[in-house]
């Protein structure tokens, strides 16, 4: 396994802060589930798509944020190596870039996996279809991977905590909020709007296109990470 990805995953899964993060993640999801338990499960108005959308939106936001915040060191995990540290290591830029992409994808997958029983419980309690959860899990994975890789790049590219944080939130704002302001034709670009379309119309090829776009965005971020490592090594001392 890629050593960079292995290192990131080990600290995220075993460190005190990493455990706290996943506990808080599960607690938020569980609280949302318990608080949204309707007074009467079978009432039609409580079966509508809005509640399912809310559950899936919580999943997308929580996984995307945790993935990118840890990669960008906004939620610093003790022992996790950022890009400046890795630039000084013996690993090649390709290994580091691929490692960051893999760690983001695997950690996002881990969060989605541990949240799966809770989301399934929330959806199944209302008799909601389970297919949207499966499809949204796939999209969440793509979005969170891309956010994680870009978060890693922000963590290396911007030395200032403030600038890094601003750029990180700006990025999250753009992919989660900004894309929602696009014309209707471009709505599949937004994870929430794409989920609405998914719940309303079921699976369409646009869904795959959206996931592919975010995976492509993750690929671009991976290239940027590799180039940053190359740049940093060529300008050693300037970084």
């Amino acid at each position, binding site marked *: 396994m890629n050593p960079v990805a292995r290192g990131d995953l080990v600290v995220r899964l075993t460190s005190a802060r990493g*455990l706290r993060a996943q506990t808080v993640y599960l607690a938020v999801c569980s609280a949302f589930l318990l608080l949204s338990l309707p007074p009467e499960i*079978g009432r039609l108005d409580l079966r509508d798509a809005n509640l399912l959308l809310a559950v899936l939106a919580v999943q997308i936001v929580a996984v995307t944020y945790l993935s990118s915040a840890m990669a960008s060191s906004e939620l610093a995990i003790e022992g996790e190596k950022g890009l400046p540290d890795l630039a000084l290591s013996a690993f090649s830029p390709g290994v580091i870039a691929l490692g960051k992409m893999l760690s983001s994808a695997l950690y996002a997958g881990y969060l989605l996996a541990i949240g799966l029983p809770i989301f399934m419980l929330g959806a199944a309690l209302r*008799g909601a279809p389970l297919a949207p959860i499966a499809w949204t899990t796939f999209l969440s994975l793509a979005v969170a991977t891309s956010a994680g890789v870009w978060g890693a790049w922000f963590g290396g590219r911007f030395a200032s905590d403030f600038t890094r944080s601003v750029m990180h939130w700006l990025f999250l704002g753009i992919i989660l909020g900004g894309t929602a302001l696009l014309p209707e034709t471009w709505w599949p670009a937004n994870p929430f709007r794409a989920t609405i379309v998914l719940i309303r119309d079921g699976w369409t090829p646009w869904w795959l296109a959206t996931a592919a776009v975010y995976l492509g965005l993750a690929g671009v971020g991976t290239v940027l990470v590799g180039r940053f490592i190359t740049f940093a090594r060529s300008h050693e001392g300037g970084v």
Partner: protein
Amino acid sequence: MTFLAVVAWAALGSAQPVGGATLAVAGLGFDGHARLGAWTPVWIDVTAGTDVDGTVVIDVPTPTGQPVVRYGAPVRAAAGAPVRVFVPAIFFESRTPGTVHLEAAGHRLASQPLPRVRPVDEIVVVLSSEPLGAEATVARTGRVDVAYVAAEMLPPVWQTYEAVRLLVVRTLDERRLDDAQRIAVRDWVWTGGRILMMPEGDDTRHLSGPTLGPLRRDARAGRLGRGHVIVWTRDPADPSVRGNAADVPAWETVLEAGAVGAAPSLEPAVPAGRPVPLRVHLVAGAMILLYVLLVRRVSRFLALLQPVPVATFVVMVLVATAAAVRLSVLARRDASGVVSATMVEMLPGTGHGLLRLHARVVSSHGGAFAITAPPGVLVRPAPPASVTIVTGPTVQISGQGAGLQLSGVAVVPLPVSGTYHAGAGGVSIRITNRSGRRIEHPWVYMDSRVQMIAPIGESAQVSLDASRWQPADRLQRTEPHHPLLVWTFLRLESDAILRGTRNWLVGWWRDPALALMWDGRPEAPLQLILVPLSASP
């Protein structure tokens, strides 16, 4: 070829059931008369070629064809022995009221379309060997028709007298009636029916028989419960005096205030929802807590990033997901049931009460359901819905989905009595409760004011506190079962009969025997009881 032969054999088998059976409509309504939308008696003769343990079912379509309401009654018939089955049904169409089927073990053994009925608003049912001579007077009363029936065709279920304005009994052979039919006549009178009894010539034996005798004995000034018992000492149908113009005013008096108006629906008093049971919250919370703790442990193990930890993690997630789905199924089943409002109103002088209930099905899983109504409670889907109602020793209701509304009535024992005494020291009441059940959250209603008193056991004597009265129409919304209480207090003000009594005891009974059963568990077992308080001598 073998497959085709099997299919052909199966098709032939379903078209011509082994043994065969015939159905004949022995009676529909009262001599063919029926009010559309009201309970109607139907008698079906079943003759089966083999022993049958099944159900006679009448499919009743609404005028638009859908939904089809199915009314049934269980039947057990030995081979070749004709059996007469009574099925209460509600029809919506007079030309093609429905089709009757014999069903057993999931197969339809025979079918027979019902003949058309004569639609009327109300019926004067007459048991007489001679014409009454009052047909012209009846015809002038409105869309009312006279139906002459034989004693054995009187229905054994009192609710099926719903369209009857007046029951005239002139000729009665007690041997042709059974106890169920006698009780049905009695209960119908108690709940507001009007019965006119008269001698047949100089024969008065039937007036003191087991059917009419108790009614005459218990009636006070012609009133019994909510109904009327009218006794004529002469026979206007005697051929020598029949059609006498002098009898017309008497007939008009008897007919003018016939059927009791429909009671307002209890639907507004039915709770809006059925809360998810607390245990569902607790179990879900406990399982989630355990799961979070488990994830923390497995997380460290997974960090080894070896095949075994990864496989363990995957198994844990899959098992937890399967458990979550299973829990949701159980929770949805647990959250399914019936919400209802049930009221038992004392029928004065009878020791019984008129139970009214309105219920709504809450089915979270949206699948099939089976409800059992207490004995004697005849329920109807309101509005009509695709549901099967089988009336036997108990009433079985089966259907699918959520939102079905049912309304029903029954006569049940209500052995509670009360008196009040207004003196210089204030008002006191005395309650005697022989039901064996505690009356919870009782209220005393006096002249549009209400006051809550302590729960009542076998008996109670309570001095009412003059400072604790509150207007009946300004009940606190926080009061448990507020909608039904408000509905009841409003009814005490507005009902033509109830408002004649100004003082009432209103309280709650918890009797699972009077509740609808869902999956074997009693649903909403609280009943609101209304007991008039008479002035203490």
